[in-house]
């Protein structure tokens, strides 16, 4: 099952679509988000938080965000 999900993600390509990438900003700081290829998540650099993307749906609820300990690394959740 996990393997199947990985295959689907690879085919998804750019994980969020164009409309969303133009409109979405960080819910807390209202600054633009950056799509991080490595963790497949949206990163808000101003406050150092990354928001996951589950099955092509970005989850921008503040509670779902992970704090990034250092530049470019996801902390253990």
């Amino acid at each position, binding site marked *: 099952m996990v393997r199947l999900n990985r295959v689907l993600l690879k085919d998804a390509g750019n994980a969020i679509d164009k409309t969303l990438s133009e409109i979405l900003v960080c819910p*807390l700081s209202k600054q633009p988000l950056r799509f991080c290829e490595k963790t497949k998540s949206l990163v808000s650099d101003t406050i150092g938080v990354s928001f996951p993307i589950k099955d092509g*749906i970005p989850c921008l609820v503040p*509670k779902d965000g992970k*704090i990034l300990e250092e530049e470019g690394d996801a902390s253990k959740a």
Partner: protein
Amino acid sequence: MRRINSLYGRIGMLRRVPEESTKKSHTLLASLSFSTEGSYGGDGELQQNSSKVKIFDRDLKRIHRDRAAWLSRQKNDSFVDAVAENLLDRLEDCKKSFPTAFCLGGSLGAVKRLLRGRGGIEKLIMMDTSYDMIKSCRDAQEDSLDNSIETSYFVGDEEFLPVKESSVDLIISSLGLHWTNDLPGSMIQCKLALKPDGLFLAAILGGETLKELRIACTLAHMEREGGISPRLSPLAQVRDAGNLLTRAGFSLPGVDVDEYVVKYKSAMDLIEHLRAMGETNALLERNKILNRETALATAAIYDSMFATEDGTIPATFQVIYMTGWREHSSHPQAKRRGSATVSFTDLQKQFGGQS
């Protein structure tokens, strides 16, 4: 019967909040907050953005909405459809078309299904706090093969709107905003997200909603347990709705009210319906225990006090519809005081002096 703190009660079979939801990633500091109280500074430590009173348990509400997504999968809810239809009808009254529309929580599925091309919408963006609800909307769209409107989905919180300023033409929220802790703050964020001359349409539940249930709950509790705990959320009054719109800064505000009376075979059916809509109790102050006797007493009192001739029981839902526009130079503005060029006596002479 005196109501304590004017909090109305809504019975819900209260679920226990699972432990995982509180052990998830930390709540984050906010460096900016869009609220009417001014900004609440973050100073490098983790704290919740909570300069305002917290009334509702938002995490529990997400769980309710996850469950509602599963419960309302198969059948369409006629009450929710009626509200969505009324809301969407207002789009036909506007000459303007709205290419980008944003739909906030509440009854997403109904809004999407009943849209039928009104308002000239080309791109629809759907947002909800519950992941399952969004998934079920997306799956419903794929099943129906109706892809004329480009739809995008994401999960977000109405109190922290992750939408850029001046980016959407239309915001619709059907029965979603009455669960926000900070309604003025959410409405201000909605206004900021709108382009100039953009429209904000919302339907929220009003103070008269479920008054029969409130009375039955209070009576049963007083009898059985000798006290009352809040069971219904505090709901907006009609007079507050107008203030909310002006406070958020919308121009040309409009408010109107509609009352729907829904009939059920028994009080338990009412509770099932509330669960399927995701409208069960999520107050922070709620009593997490419900005695079986109290629940049965409530059902019995409801039946004896409010039953109709054919044995069904009615429940009132008061829906407040709010309309507001983001300012634009084309909107009529009131002229400045003292700048009148015509006096009333002139007008009277002009129109023939009929008294």
